[in-house]
């Protein structure tokens, strides 16, 4: 691998690239044209840069659409500068001095990767290459069998070459690979026959099964996570996440030191429990209501979108029809004008056709204006409805939240009562149970205990308020955003259509004008 070391390395500069592109570009007549015009790097699909003594990959960022890149037989030491070449399908880096696989994370379309005859000792950093089909890693320094297990993630991998690695000298090298990569068809340029597959299966069945089991477990876990995440997303879209359980209640007590301390008082435990039950029931109500409302909103949105789409489609069909009609006439008129020899007739026809064009513009514009008006009306109606829906939702949630607050107030009163009575008991020395010191400290005097209970209450109320505010602001912002987007989309659509019509009419007019011009020239 030390060959070429005595040769002076070359830099990948514009000149070199241009030369390569020019040489590998189109031939013959097309080549002349290409030379005349010059080839833009971003139009190049395939590039060959072998035997150039390149040390460092550079200057390739312009080749955005490159599909095939050959950099073999150079002295490259590090894979770099390929980040922009996302369309790359075929990459040849064989016969270089690369030591580690890296810098391939953006090449998601890569199917064929050759790293033959390098100094690689470990297979990794290939995770992004999900479409990989052919991998050539022969004549490297891969020494560990576990590298092969890494290749199991490439479902499309069919061809692999690893000969010339230390790993290939192992006794069960072939069977090991066949067992762990059962979809592989060619190994080291040989087709894997069925006999070999059977043999491999027999030999490594146990370990492969174990691996498979682990993998499936992982997969299941992943899927579960995914499902959970999706569910939460759904809840979030309904603005009622974490309301289908005691989550809110728990969060109320999470930062409440006094509250948890007070729960050690006799009778408080039961009180908190009943309070929690009631609270959770209300939360669940909010959740259910929220989900239902979400569905309603979604249905509303779907019908709206459907109707808008229908209306647009209808006008579009009409417009297409008009244009088709016009086009027919246009072609006929153009040819007749072309054949016209008399100037007066020519001018009359020109004028007539100009009128035709104006008429077409009028028709198309009328259609568009009609559509704009119709859609405006519809959008306004939808806006009103969605505001109503959101308002209803917020109102209901607020009333339910108020119930929560009532519960909290009620609880607070009860707690206060118990606290005061306990304090009295402590003062009288009648208290039987042992209380932790921290709790006992609260009962130093009446103010302290009242303050403690009050602080707990405040924290609870704050939590409830926060949750409510969050919900309301989010739903409102969603609504505003949605309506805004609909308006914007509509405006964009209108502009695009206007532009399209104008462009078309300009084109038609220019066709007519060019006739005039050419005629005048004659």
């Amino acid at each position, binding site marked *: 691998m030390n060959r070429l070391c005595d040769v002076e390395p070359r830099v990948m500069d514009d000149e070199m690239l241009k030369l390569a592109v020019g040489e590998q570009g189109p031939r013959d007549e097309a080549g002349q*044209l290409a030379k005349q015009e010059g080839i833009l790097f971003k139009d190049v699909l395939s590039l060959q840069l072998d035997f150039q003594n390149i040390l460092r990959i550079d200057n390739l960022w312009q080749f955005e659409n490159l599909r095939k890149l050959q950099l073999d037989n150079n002295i490259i030491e590090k894979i770099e500068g390929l980040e922009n070449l996302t369309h790359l399908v075929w990459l040849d880096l064989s016969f270089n001095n690369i030591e580690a696989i890296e810098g391939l994370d953006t090449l998601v379309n890569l199917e064929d990767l050759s790293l033959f005859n390098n100094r690689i000792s470990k297979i990794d950093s290939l995770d992004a290459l999900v479409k990989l089909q052919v991998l050539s890693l022969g004549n490297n320094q891969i020494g560990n069998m576990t590298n092969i297990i890494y290749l199991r993630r490439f479902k499309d991998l069919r061809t692999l070459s690893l000969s010339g690695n230390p790993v290939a000298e192992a006794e069960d090298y072939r069977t090991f690979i066949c067992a762990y990569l059962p979809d592989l068809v060619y190994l080291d340029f040989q087709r894997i026959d069925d006999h070999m597959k059977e043999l491999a299966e027999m030999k490594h069945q146990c370990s492969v099964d174990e691996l498979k089991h682990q993998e499936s477990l992982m997969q299941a876990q992943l899927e579960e996570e995914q499902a959970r995440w999706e569910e939460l997303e759904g809840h979030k879209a309904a603005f009622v996440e974490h309301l289908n359980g005691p989550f809110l209640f728990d969060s109320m007590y999470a930062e409440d030191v006094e509250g948890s301390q007070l729960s050690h008082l006799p009778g408080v435990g039961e009180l908190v429990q009943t309070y929690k039950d009631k609270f959770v029931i209300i939360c669940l109500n909010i959740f259910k209501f929220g989900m239902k409302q979400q569905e309603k909103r979604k249905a509303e949105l779907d019908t709206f979108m459907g109707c808008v789409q229908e209306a647009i489609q209808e006008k579009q069909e009409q417009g297409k029809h008009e244009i088709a009609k016009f086009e027919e006439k246009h072609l006929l008129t153009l040819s007749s004008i072309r054949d016209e020899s008399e100037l007066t007739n020519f001018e009359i026809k020109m004028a007539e056709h100009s009128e035709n064009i104006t008429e077409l513009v009028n028709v198309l514009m009328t259609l568009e204006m009609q559509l704009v008006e119709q859609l405006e009306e519809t959008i306004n109606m939808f806006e009103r409805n969605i505001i109503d829906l959101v308002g209803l939702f917020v109102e209901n949630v607020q009333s339910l939240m108020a119930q929560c607050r009532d519960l909290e107030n009620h609880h607070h009163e009860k707690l206060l009562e118990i606290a005061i009575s306990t304090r009295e008991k402590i003062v009288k020395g009648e208290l039987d149970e042992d209380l932790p010191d921290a709790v006992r400290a609260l009962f130093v005097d009446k103010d302290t205990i009242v303050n403690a209970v009050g602080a707990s209450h405040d924290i609870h109320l704050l939590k409830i308020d926060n949750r409510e505010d969050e919900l309301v602001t989010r739903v409102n912002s969603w609504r505003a955003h949605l309506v805004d987007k609909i308006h914007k989309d509509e405006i964009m659509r209108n502009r695009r259509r206007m532009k399209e019509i104008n462009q078309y009419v300009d084109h038609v007019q220019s066709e007519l004008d060019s006739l005039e011009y050419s005629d005048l020239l004659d």
Partner: protein
Amino acid sequence: MLVAPSWSEVGHSECIYSSYRDLISRQSETQQMEVLKEKVEEEEEAERAEQAERAERAKKMMRPMEVRKEDTTRTQEMLRDLERKLSEIEVSIPEKPSTFTKDAIDTSKLPLSYQSNTPKEEHLLQVADNFSRQYSHLCPDRVPLFLYPVNECSVPKFVSTTIRPTLMPYPELYNWDTCAQFVSDFLSAVPLPDPLKPPSYLYSSTTVLKYQEGNCFDFSTLLCSMLLGAGYDAYCVYGYGSQDLCHMDLTREVCPLTVKPKEMVKEEEKAPPKKYAVKPPRDLTSRFEREQEIKRQEGVKAEEEKRLKQGERLAEQESAKTDPLHGLRVHSWVLVLSGKREVPESFFIDPFTARSYSTQDDHFLGIESLWNHKNYWVNMQDCWNCCKDLVFDLGDPVRWEYLLLETDKPLLSLTEEEDDGMNDDDDVENLGKEDEDKSFDMPCSWVEQIEISPEAFETRCPNGKKVIQYKRARLEKWAPYLNNNGLVCRLTTYEDLQCTKILEIKEWFQNRKDMLELKHINKVTGLNIDYFKPGHPQALRAHSYTSMQPEMDRVMEFYETARVDGLIKREETPRTMTEYYQGRPDLLSYRHVNFGPRIKKLSLNSAESNPRPVVLRHSLPTSHPTHVLACQKITERFSRNPAKPADEDVAERVFLLLDERIQLRYHCREDHLTASKREFLWRTEGDSKGNKIIMTPDMCLSFEVEPMEHTKKLLYQYEAMMKLKNEEKLARHQAWESELEVLEILKLREEEEAAHVLTISIYDTKRNEKSKEYREAMERMMLEEHLWQAEAQLDYLAPFLAQLPPGEKLTRWQAVRLKDECLSDFKQRLIDKANLIQARFEKETQELQKQQQWYQENQVTLTPEDEDLYLSYCSQAMFRIRILEQRLNRHKELAPLKYLALEEKLYKDPRLVELLKVFV
């Protein structure tokens, strides 16, 4: 209309009923029955006296009836008068033998049930006779019933027993429509001997089927038998039909095959307007004006329709002559009542034409009686309004008088009627006998099992051919394989009622090798359309043409799934060819080729030298530049390829070969109105300096919906153009190939038409020669094998076993002895054979020695002739001796082997094996 006159008093049915019941109950009391009979006979006697007169009168009365038919507004008085007169008319069953007897029927070979009556049948006949007498007594104004006509052996048989319910073994005959069609096809109709009377005879269905001929009663009996067998609630009806019906005259009916099925105008279900559906733009036209306009148009249309209808009606009336015997013509048909086999509504089937009619149809003018295999019912309802008011509730004794009591039909309560009955004195006995009476049911049918052989079923019509004349149409039917071109049906439609101007001809074919199914010839336009079933070698579906010459107007449709190129349709005119495709990988859906005018000189040259001038017409430009002119324009359209962006997906490309111009139109983007266009101009001449122009910006004119940078490049355009040039060549080549294919198909069609080969199913064992041969060969082989086996199984133990007492089991000792005997016998035979050969050998040798001796002695005196004789003898004798010697040696060699073989065989013989085992 008048034949079943209105009888208002309903009570008489009860009379008949009770009298009938009485009759049954007092069968033992023959005396009284005799009295009753006598009474009736007396009446008949009196009537008979006037018979001659009556016949005369009946004829006279015909006229008033006619009058009445035409003039329905008669006064009550006149009506009553007429009724009275009519009531005097009574047509009795004619005594004379029917004029329509088949002498050919060999009655002697018919089974016994045909030639005689069982006691039960005799009994039934008596009941029927009595019923008929009472009926004629009680309803003297009605014609006698059709109860027990004679059969082919001149034995009277009750009509119900002539019906033999049979389910045919053909699945095609499971439904009423196919059954009726079969009966109408299979039998040829014979008119009644007297159109005003039912026949005096009714043959069995088996005889009718044998001779394939019958009158309407035979038809309906056979059909009824089949329908009852198939589970329908069917009845034979004796009644009155229109002239067309009775004469099987369909000339005033529209052929069912010409009637186009009414297109179901499916009301598209309008989805309820959605919540956010946009409001339509305001309509500013006047609604009043629109309404007025619609009204006016409707008025005009109605007027026109009226006029048309009137014209038609006039024409019809002219053609339809009034029938003087209207309402008197006797006919028989089949009634199918609702209820069984999911028949939703009762209907009539005319067995002659196999058409079904509603029970309200105008063709059916009255019903006298009806019967099935179980019972007989007489209509007691008024038929003044044809059959329109009849109620087919056979359980209602007021409307339908039945002959036999039946258990499965609902009956009204009996008690009241008994009180009103005529024979009050026998009430007690009546009650006692009632249960028994009910049990008296119809005897089994005397008719043999109805059988239709598969050959007859396939041949269908008598001699396999049938012609039906409809209104402005003629239908001819043939049995399959009867015509050697596979023709099975031909429908000729005429323009006028006289059937002189042919409008169109439709011919149906079956079992054709070329899968031709229907040939439609329009005589007016000269357009022929051939329809094919799947399986034509060129996947042809339909071919419409005016002439078989190439380059004429024609349309060919194909089964696109059977073709590699997915071609659906190819339309041709002298100047164009249009092809439609489906399901191609390149998404080509349409190709249109315009041909320029043929160059005269060229065609003259090529027409003689080349049998296919068309081929030259678009041969590739390299072969002959002048021919390019012919193919002027090729238009190709493509479906949208979802894998490509719309701006790169070509929707239509037009190759203008004359101008060297290529036009491209791309697909329209989803949310756009306009589509991109591109036009390439091909310039071959060099520029002013003589350099060859490769590509200039004005060679490609394009309009792009969304202008893109890379498409402006000359290189891109150049490459696109080069590609298109290639495609153009390809398209031209394909057009040429298509033209070739058309010629090929035309040639093939001509060959097929000339040869018309019929296919024979491999399951058709009779027609399929190959399979027949094969089967016969198989049978022959089987037979030979059987013979051979029989020979091989020559039993060597048989003579020895015969010595032993038969049927006893062998003992071991016997078995051993048997074996030994057999072996010793065989040994003896071998020795005998050896001895025989030895003896012959010795004899031959002796003879030779004698001759030699004789020769030695007389050698000197012998003539050369004698010597020759001696020498030839010697050589022959020597030969014989040698052969004998050989045989002897061979026998000596083989004898021990043969012996051992037999021994072995004996040890293995199933009869001895058990017993000899020990010794082995």
